[in-house]
């Protein structure tokens, strides 16, 4: 188990350094609208995947808390939302840079972009909700219920709404090319997939650390 823990952390470091060097140095398709900014795919999308992974862990933890009432699952749910916010914010920042290069603006009125912003606000509200309740078990129960609702809203705002109505100009939405077979360059896949795995492993490592730290804190509070 210890070897597994060390190996996934080492793998995260190897994959992210590989994504950094290969991402900047390897050839990419020459597309006039994207130019060299296409390399942002390895970082921007990886960060969003990490955010989704954290939110999935958080959802499962909240469901588990409602079933078992174990404090550990509440800590896991809270910390994974915190990390999802960090990766989501990084995803938004890298996306804004990409938008400026390709669309000419830092932000455009697009269902996908607005949905991502609303999702982050929903999870910020989760943190505000937690901060407003003092009773520990009540806080855990109410925030677990809210977290399940927030996940459903994330699915609606980020995955359903951008695909309906007038559609979005964001890749992957409204018929725009993205990651499907034949759409993403085969050479880029050699960097993209390791990068995504690297970002997700990094987020898991950070989650593990923050959960261990929170457990230590609650242990310290119990002894005082």
């Amino acid at each position: 188990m210890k070897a597994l823990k060390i190996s996934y952390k080492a793998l995260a470091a190897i994959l992210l350094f590989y994504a950094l060097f290969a991402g900047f140095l390897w050839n990419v398709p020459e597309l006039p609208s994207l130019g060299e900014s296409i390399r942002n795919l390895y970082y921007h999308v990886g960060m969003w995947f990490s955010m989704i992974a954290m939110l999935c862990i958080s959802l499962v933890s909240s469901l588990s808390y409602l079933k078992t009432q174990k404090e550990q699952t509440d800590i896991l749910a809270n910390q994974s939302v915190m990390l999802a916010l960090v990766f989501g914010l990084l995803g938004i920042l890298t996306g804004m840079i990409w938008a400026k290069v390709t669309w000419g603006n830092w932000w455009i009125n697009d269902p996908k972009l607005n949905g991502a912003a609303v999702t982050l606000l929903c999870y910020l509200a989760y943190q505000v909700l937690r901060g407003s309740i003092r009773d520990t078990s009540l806080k855990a129960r109410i925030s677990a219920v809210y977290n399940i609702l927030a996940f459903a809203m994330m699915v609606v705002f980020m995955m359903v709404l951008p695909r309906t109505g007038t559609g979005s100009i964001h890749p992957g939405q409204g018929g725009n090319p993205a990651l499907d077979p034949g759409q993403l360059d085969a050479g880029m896949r050699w960097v993209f997939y390791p990068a995504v795995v690297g970002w997700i492993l990094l987020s898991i490592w950070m989650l593990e650390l923050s959960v261990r730290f929170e457990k230590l804190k609650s242990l310290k509070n119990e002894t005082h």
Partner: protein
Amino acid sequence: MLSDPTLLSVIIVFAVILAGLFAFLIALDLRIRKLSRRK
């Protein structure tokens, strides 16, 4: 491609940031492990 000084400096900056992040995480990991053992 590495002969381009701008690209080289961008890669170096990001590599330093990434190395700093991993150094921080490893240090934090070891510190938490040490504190957990003490408890």
